[in-house]
């Protein structure tokens, strides 16, 4: 009994000691917290890299949806969004919500960099880094202004109008240029914001400044397929979503381009298992396009022609990619349903469709166009509307797969249900949650990417020339900002 008693005491001591040694209640959080980010040496650089990454994610979330919505691409049968293809833009559509989230996250991260991470970096906060934070803030506001009629600028904040968002973009790009006067991206971004605001004087001024600084400037969105995770509208999807949509067979049949744009597709392709294509975010072409459109609006058609010819010269210097695209089909499920051979003329124009099964294809990597100097000359003769129509065709061709056509044709997203219901300034049924498109778009909502194709005669006619429709409605606020 005595032995047992002693053993018992020993056991108690042992139990207490072992508890201290291996406390089963101790849990270690593997994640990092605020103090690991703010006030840490070189955190401003890692935060900038985070913004580059966020740009790729935000672009993924907006650009594919916007290409489907526009006439550029038809979503014949993929599980990518099918509603917006017919201009059916709904507040309950999760993709519309995700697009807004991409903008919100880019803005919040830029602001957090400017307010918290940058100023507290003990290793220094360079002007170049500050310029980049402001640049991305500018892009966030620019997207808000380009894709939405109104969007809050802060968490659950009041709705801010398109022009106020664009003005906020102007201010952010101005701040970027103050920090780094050689930031061509900020010059082009500000030119684009002024363009959308209809301010031709400032837009042209920035466009010229950008060309003077770097006449073949391109800033790419860069993707990282190696470190990507989650699905393609997730928070960590850093593969090139456009590439997935346009070229990789993983998503059933790919998005199908309007037959007039076939020769420009796919702008992005799978370079290798560990490398995706880049997509231009801002490029010098835009400066020429702004200058040309301003000239047309000011009835200076020769001036516009000069800008457009300068543009052709720039495009001629741009690289192309040559690759095997034989696994891509033009409507695999309905063979003969879409033009798929170079023998086809589209709208009477030859050379717009590639042979994909007969060896490698060559597709412009940054920009390409079917326009030439002769067409420009003819358009000058034909007058303002012909010039503007040609210009919009070039915009469409040059910006394909960059998500830009959406705003050019006058489309606009709505405030999502998720935002509306949680934001006291909005609420269910608010006008900002209901799509209101220009009448000229609703008239052709289900036909924007339709065409007639006679496979036997090798002729194809696109049902509506949306560029002509835009120009016919150039006075509408939704399109042609300088008119």
């Amino acid at each position, binding site marked *: 009994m005595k032995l*047992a*008693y002693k*053993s*018992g005491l020993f*056991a*108690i001591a*042992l*139990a*207490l000691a072992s*508890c201290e040694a291996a*406390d*089963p*209640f*101790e*849990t270690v959080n*593997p*994640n*990092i*917290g*605020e103090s*690991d980010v703010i006030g840490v040496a070189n955190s401003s650089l890692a*935060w900038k*890299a*985070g913004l*580059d*990454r966020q740009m790729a994610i935000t672009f993924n979330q907006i650009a594919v949806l916007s290409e489907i919505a526009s006439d550029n691409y038809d*979503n014949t049968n993929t*599980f990518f969004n*099918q*509603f917006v*293809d*017919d201009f059916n833009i709904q507040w309950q559509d999760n993709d519309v919500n995700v697009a*807004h989230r991409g903008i*919100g*996250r880019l803005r*919040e*991260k830029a602001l*957090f960099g400017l307010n918290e*991470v940058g100023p507290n970096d003990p290793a220094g906060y360079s002007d170049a880094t500050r310029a980049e934070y402001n640049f991305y803030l500018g892009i966030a506001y620019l997207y808000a202004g380009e894709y939405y009629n109104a969007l809050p600028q*802060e*968490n*659950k904040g009041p709705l801010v109008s398109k022009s106020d968002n664009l003005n906020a973009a102007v201010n952010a790009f101005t701040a970027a240029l103050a920090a780094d006067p050689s930031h061509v991206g900020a010059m082009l971004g500000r030119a684009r914001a002024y363009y959308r605001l209809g301010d031709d004087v400032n837009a042209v001024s920035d466009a010229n400044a950008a060309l003077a600084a770097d006449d073949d400037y391109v800033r790419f969105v860069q993707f*990282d*397929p*190696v*470190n990507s995770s989650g699905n393609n509208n997730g*928070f960590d999807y850093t593969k090139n979503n456009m590439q997935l949509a346009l070229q990789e*067979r*993983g998503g*059933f*049949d790919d998005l199908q381009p309007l037959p007039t744009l076939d020769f420009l597709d796919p702008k992005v392709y799978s370079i*290798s*298992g560990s490398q995706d294509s880049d997509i231009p975010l801002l490029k010098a072409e835009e400066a020429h396009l702004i200058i040309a459109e301003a000239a047309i609006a000011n009835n200076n058609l020769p001036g516009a022609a000069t800008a457009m010819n300068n543009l052709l010269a720039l495009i001629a210097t741009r690289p192309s990619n040559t690759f095997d695209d*034989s*696994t891509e089909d033009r409507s695999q499920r*309905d063979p003969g349903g879409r033009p798929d051979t170079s023998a086809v003329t589209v709208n009477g124009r030859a050379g717009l469709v590639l042979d994909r099964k007969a060896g490698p294809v060559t597709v412009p990597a940054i920009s390409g166009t079917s326009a030439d100097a002769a067409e420009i000359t003819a358009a000058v003769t034909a007058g303002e509307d012909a010039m503007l129509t040609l210009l919009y065709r070039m915009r469409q061709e040059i910006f394909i797969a960059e998500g830009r056509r959406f705003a050019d044709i006058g489309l606009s997203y709505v405030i999502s*249900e*998720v935002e509306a*219901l*949680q934001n006291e300034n909005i609420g269910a049924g608010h006008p900002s949650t209901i799509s209101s498109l220009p009448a000229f778009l609703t008239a052709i909502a289900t036909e924007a990417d339709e065409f007639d194709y006679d496979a036997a005669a090798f002729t194809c006619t696109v049902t509506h020339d949306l560029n002509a429709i835009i120009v016919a409605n150039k006075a509408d606020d939704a399109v042609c900002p300088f008119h």
Partner: protein
Amino acid sequence: MKSNATLFSVLLLMLFSFAGYAQTSVSGIVKSAETGEPLPSVMVTEVGTDNVVATNFDGAFEISVGSNASLEFKVFGSEPKTVAVGNNDFLVVELEVNSSTIDEVVVTGQGIGINKRRISTTISSIDAADIERSPAVQLDQLIQSKLPNAQIRLSSGQPGTASIIRSRGPVSALINTTPVIFIDGVRVDNLNSNPELGISSGGAQSSAIADIPMESIERIEYIPGGAATTLYGADAANGVLQIFTKRGSGGQNTVNFEAQIGSIQGTTDFLKFDRTADALFEPGLMQQYRIGFGGGTRNFNYQFSGSIYEDDGFNDLNTQVRRNLRLSVFSQVNTRLSYSGSVAYSNLEFNRDYNANTSYARFGNLEGGQFGDIDAMDDSTFNALVDQIRLEGELTNFTENINRFQFSNNFKYNITSNLVAALDLGLDYRNSTQREVGTNAMQIAKGFFPVGTTDQGYIIDSDRNFAVLSGNLNIQHTAEAGDFSFLTLVGGQFFRQQDVQQAITALQVVDGSVSINNSSSQQAEDFYSVLTSYGMYVNENIGFRDRFFLDVGLRLDGNSAFGESVGLIPLPKVGASYIVSEESFWKNTFSQSSWSTLKLRANYGQASVFPTAFANLLTFAAPAYLGSSSFDFDNPGDDELRSEITSTWEVGADVGFFKNRVYGGITYYNTTTNGALFTPPANPSSGQRSQLQNVGEISNKGWEISLGAEVIRTEKHRLSVNASYNYNENVVVSTGGTPEFAVGGFTFLGAFVKEGQPLGYLRGTQGTINGDGTVTFTQNAFLGTTFAPTFGTFSMSYTYDNKLTVSVAGDYQQGGQGVNVDDVLRFFGGVNDEGRLPAEAVAEAGSFFDLAGYWVEDANYVKIRNISATYQLGDLFDGTLTRASVGVSLINPLNFVSSSFDPDVTGAGIADQGGFGGGGFAFGTQSAPRMYVLTLKFGL
């Protein structure tokens, strides 16, 4: 912490004290009074003590008793009997059959058996005989159609996959409906979904339930969530499944062999195209061999069982191998302390095909009309397609290997004759390795890349290491005072689970390499989750005249995943039961041969589901991006985060008629989940990720009815039938003002959480054809619910002359819906089901999104899961072989369904670790195969 340490020390103190008193040894044999057959697993208890042993296979027992002892003999299915030992040293005891379940001894949770009459909650159990007869190699298959109040839906025919297990409806949007699982009082991994970093393979999600060690299972108990699970705290709101393993019994050495051989065939019941079977299915061979032996003395005995299982699947690709073993020991350390422990190991290796949600899926592509109507193809085209499909199969290399160890230690210490302490302590460790080798050749064969591609090869390697350490220590005191009896339980419980995962993706792997070293780049990811749950509980069970019982308990529940400002959460319970049929007024009114039993019961209790580890914290992330580290916002954090609490009240009755030859139970329950853990979408203007929050409220109400009858009970013939009916009404009462959000499915048709609708209801566009032939498309309409409100089981068992047993078991569901996603794909190919889509709707639809509602079908079914016959051969070859039996089983033989797809299979599976899973999306997934199994068993 301190209180736990103190309790632990008290126990250790007790372990080291000694005492002794006079003992004599009694042995004997227990038989069935009706048949004379020996009865195994009869609990033999020295009355007034906690001294208990069980009979072995031959009904034999040996027990050491004090002077003037009486022995009580109890086993489920027989009338208990008490016998005075007197001067006998050998007893022959015969027990009468009794179908009443009132006096069944159940363990319920805290390690010490309790008579079912004392408790007010329901428990269903599967006994040794049922388990013996089942050829199932996986726990979910074993319990399917055997638990009257739970539903098990096999979600894929691929090896190692999960079932959706549910009983009282989905109480949480955070987790799926899988119950917590204990083996011998030790918590085990019950992850019934793909791990966080697991490889999806297109929807066939792996499950830890598929490899729970299956050796030596003697009994399984299932208790639904509610007052019954209050004392478990933590995440017991979905109920608790307890597995008890065999313990050797003294004095007898036994050796058992078992061999099974069978054929596995793909079921063609749900195929769209007959030729899908021609292209993919190949009958497979399954075989299993098992050896078990046990023996020792009364004070120290052991039991060993080991088996190996192998099959080569019902198609050209799948194979699986299982190796299982368990060793259990029991030791009566001294007169007061007993120890039993077991160690089990299981190994599962299999390979898998791509499924459903990937264009790599062979079955999905065939059934999804990727190749058009293959039944209408000319033979040479089809043969070429078969060659192509077979080539893709040969090039598919997706394997998983699981190694699992499980330990349990159970100590029992009789402090005095009415005070007993019990400690369960154990560990489950599970390692799984998934590896997908995607060669260039495979991707070229599947048409993803042009011939000659050499830079698209990849390997994904995903490892998960999971360990859960759990302990439960309690002291139970029994006392009697006049008409009152008291059962007091005080205890503490904890578990710590650690989940560490790593995934490596290697790109541009050279064909021929199965090593990530031969690649141009590698990306690694890890996942770490550790969580500790702890609780203290007290429970008082007061009996009055052994027929009225009051049960009151409280648990204080703590968890490392709670927010900073949340302390211990109290979970109360209270219940009462009343055995009316033992009152004299009842006996005077009804005779035993009319209405024999009536037990009334009612209770209220709370259980909980704890939040995801670290979800309470504000965190940042630093993912790699193009070679550098990049900061990102991560989890927003919530200081108030806590468990969601499910409060259940239930009332019910157990009845028996005609000497309990007809028996049943009925229960009405009403469960409300308060502070339900929802992850509503963050408003996009915040730019933040969504945060887990206690904002929801979910209601589940319903009925559980089970009925059984011994239709025939003669010396030669016994026929029993059982059936159950369950009705569950599930609704999201509140989402706390947050907008509805998706918990599964697709953009065109998803599973959503919305106020006023069932959890995970199907949402999509509903087309309605108007009188004038126009079509109205209503977006985001309610299209159905994936949890069928009505479900149940049925079974029949016939025994002839105690030699031949024939049994049939099945289950059914009614009132739920599912989506035929395969036909959406067939629609793209123009080979969709005739008559599904009204021409007007197709003409007016903007896209297939508008037609979503037409792909939703009622998913009612009646399925016969098992038909088996067993014949007892007895002793053979002059007793060289003993207890020989031969059996045949048909698994999944018959399906009657209302839908054009298999309502069981859900290609989308449960993709998020532990996440909500309602199923309901039939998508390119092969159904569980049909199996024909021959079993031979004998002992030496």
